[in-house]
């Protein structure tokens, strides 16, 4: 299985499926969806196997070596992201089939046609995310970032008129971020004359152009990842969108821009990222954890609680930088790999569960969902397991991430992250158990308008349980990251070596 197929399939298959889904009718679309899910699952498995056996997999598109041609590369982190993207993508596709099969969320659904357009745009987004994870060229990443941003906007606007203001704000933030990233790329290319990440990393020097580029690119990507204080656009967009779209946005799209932030930080700009800047980023992360959780506590709509929970969980991701910058070896990257995958599965499950509840009850106002644990037990159980994982209860993936983050904090002597993580855990249990308590209430619980469909709860349950048992998959995750080490990322220090 040549590297071209291994690295080409995750990108080209969804794009081809998008074309077929757009050109073909309903009958063709269902077949295309099933074929794509199978194809991507196979591709991800083969890629993981190749990375496990041969380490980093690379392919020069067009046969031209960088810096002339574009390099596609799959190291351990990229493989993990592709696997996450595939798993969550398949679950969301199954959910969307059931979700859009029925009626829309009881709002200005518009002609059936609009929801038929969900599939080509979603497949485009799916392929763009894989392209982003695998690309090794800084301008190519601009194009994938734009593709992800635009498809996100189109998907949000699927929810009809009430989602358009949120889609507009999301588009503006996305455009500002992409253009600042483009400016950064322009300055980097002007200064160093190469466009591939590895080449830029080698040529990097502390010059004004590099500083300007770093500032522009980091701020732009932080805005797209909704890091506090640039988070205001996320909750209305993620909560306003249809449930499968919210799941994809919160679980995958956020991880795309964070992954790019991480790549630039460790591979391209290590020279320009002193410890004090890393601490500043860590502070913003902590602010996100505390501020996001505080706001989540005060929300009355279920999807807004889950959306603000995303703002909080993004904060944990940014704790990577103070804990791993400058360290020869650290477990922080492993922690972030776990957190990214676990949050993706758990958050997607919670948004799908919220979508299922919304279809059953006709609203996602928390007070109206009293007694959901009895009347709509399947989606409620999926939400509960997802909540358990996000809070950080063992054996969830978030628990493993939290354990490693705390270990890294103590190993590097940066003890001030410990109270932040502890407070984050308690606040998360605060705003999530608040919802679960309402689910468990038996007095005065109204029956849902329509019986919750199992086809909607099944993918959510599968993802939630996967996130719950992620700790047991730890050896596989560690193995992939060790066998295909990412350039610039500190080695995994967990080993006895």
């Amino acid at each position: 299985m040549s590297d071209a197929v291994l690295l080409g399939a995750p990108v080209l298959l969804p794009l081809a499926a998008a074309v077929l889904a757009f050109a073909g009718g309903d009958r063709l679309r269902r077949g295309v969806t099933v074929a794509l899910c199978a194809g991507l699952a196979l591709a991800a498995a083969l890629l993981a196997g190749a990375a496990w056996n041969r380490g980093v997999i690379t392919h020069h598109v067009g046969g031209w070596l960088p810096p002339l041609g574009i390099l596609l590369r799959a190291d351990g982190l990229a493989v993990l992201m592709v696997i996450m993207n595939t798993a969550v993508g398949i679950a969301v596709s199954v959910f969307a089939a059931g979700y859009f099969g029925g009626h829309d969320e009881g709002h200005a659904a518009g002609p059936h046609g609009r929801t038929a357009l969900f599939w080509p745009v979603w497949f485009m987004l799916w392929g763009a995310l894989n392209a982003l994870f695998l690309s090794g060229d800084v301008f190519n990443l601009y194009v994938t970032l734009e593709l992800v941003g635009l498809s996100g906007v189109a998907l949000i606007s699927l929810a009809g008129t009430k989602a358009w203001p949120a889609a507009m704000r999301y588009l503006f933030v996305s455009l500002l971020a992409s253009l600042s990233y483009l400016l950064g790329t322009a300055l980097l290319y002007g200064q160093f004359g190469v466009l591939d990440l590895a080449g830029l990393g080698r040529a990097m020097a502390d010059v004004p152009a590099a500083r300007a580029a770093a500032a522009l690119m980091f701020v732009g990507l932080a805005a797209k990842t909704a890091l506090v204080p640039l988070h205001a656009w996320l909750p209305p967009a993620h909560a306003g969108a249809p449930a499968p779209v919210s799941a994809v946005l919160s679980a995958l799209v956020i991880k795309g821009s964070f992954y790019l932030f991480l790549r630039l930080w460790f591979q391209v700009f290590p020279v320009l990222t002193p410890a004090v800047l890393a601490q500043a980023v860590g502070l913003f992360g902590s602010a996100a954890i505390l501020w996001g959780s505080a706001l989540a506590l005060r929300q009355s709509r279920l999807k807004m609680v889950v959306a603000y929970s995303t703002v909080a969980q993004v904060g944990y991701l940014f704790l990577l930088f103070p804990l791993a910058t400058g360290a020869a070896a650290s477990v922080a990257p492993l922690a972030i790999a776990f957190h990214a995958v676990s949050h993706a599965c758990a958050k997607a499950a919670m948004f799908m569960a919220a979508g299922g509840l919304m279809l059953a009850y006709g609203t996602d106002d928390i007070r109206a969902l009293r007694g959901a644990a009895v009347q709509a037990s399947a989606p409620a159980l999926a939400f509960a397991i997802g909540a358990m994982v996000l809070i950080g209860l063992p054996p969830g993936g978030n628990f493993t991430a939290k354990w490693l983050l705390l270990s890294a904090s103590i190993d590097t002597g940066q003890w001030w992250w410990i109270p932040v993580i502890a407070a984050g855990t308690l606040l998360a249990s605060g705003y999530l158990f608040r919802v679960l308590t309402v689910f468990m209430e038996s007095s005065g619980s109204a029956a849902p308008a329509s019986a919750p469909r199992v086809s909607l709860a099944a993918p959510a349950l599968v993802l939630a349980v996967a996130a719950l048992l992620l700790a047991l998959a730890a050896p596989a995750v560690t193995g992939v990251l060790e066998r295909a080490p990412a350039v610039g990322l500190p080695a995994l220090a967990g080993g006895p070596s």
Partner: protein
Amino acid sequence: MNGVAIIDVLLAAAVPVLAAAALLYRDLFRAAVVFIVLGLTIALVWVRLDAPDIALAEAAVGAGITGALFMRALGALPGPTRSAHPVRSSRFQRLAVRGAAGVFAGIVAALVAWAVVTVPSSDPVLTSLVRDAAPDSGVGNPVTAVLLNFRGYDTLLEVGVLLLAALGVSTIGAHRHAASLGGTRVRGPVILAFAHLVLPGLIVLAAYLLWTGADLPGGAFQGAAVLAGAWLICAFAGFPADVAPGRMPAVLAGGFCIFLLVAAGMVLLNGGLLRFMPATAKWWMLLIESGLLVSCAAILATLVFRLTDDDRPEAGR
């Protein structure tokens, strides 16, 4: 002042002034017109900077299509808001916001200017690499070589973005598919005469641009923009410009589909994504470009037409 002619100084000054004007005019329509003039001025800048390919693209897409989009959008907006602006927040508040944004933008621009000044004045290493690899690329024009051969993957995703824009506009516009161009009819004698005169020329020009793109400035996108222009004139003039509704999605996605097939095909034939053999590279690229010509033209035309739902005849100006 080596190599700087008066025209450069004029252009370099005119561009920011026009940009500021476009953003400050109270009447949005007049702002849009100034924006189109800005686009053409920037096209001149490209000519001065020896970038003919970009000048073509800027004039056709940057000024032409984007200008048409703005006009179309302004046409659909409710009348009054287009000129006077209902001032809700106090003038002071709006000035404060504008001032803060100005300061922030100033800092960013200063950062960028500082970088521009300190950038080494030597050609990037890539220029020599392209020059050395050009013979194997199968085309004479280095820009087309970079676009379709060396960095063909970028262009593949870029066409994806364009197709996605068509999908996005349809999703927002609540249409089943971009089924038909539809669009408004003007029926004026002037447009009819103009159409008869210019349409054949435009179509030949588009084909010419496609063909010469291999060795001289030109290429698929520039040709597509010209063809889209022709398509718009056809639709406005009331000529039968509609593709059969069922097949419109196929036309829109056709170019992208060909590109994907060629990309995958090259894996089977030459063992690498988009990997062309020097001998046959020219014909594969021509195949891709012709597919892109038709599809991108259709997409650009659809973007202009599907921008708004209403199909009422174009009112007034």
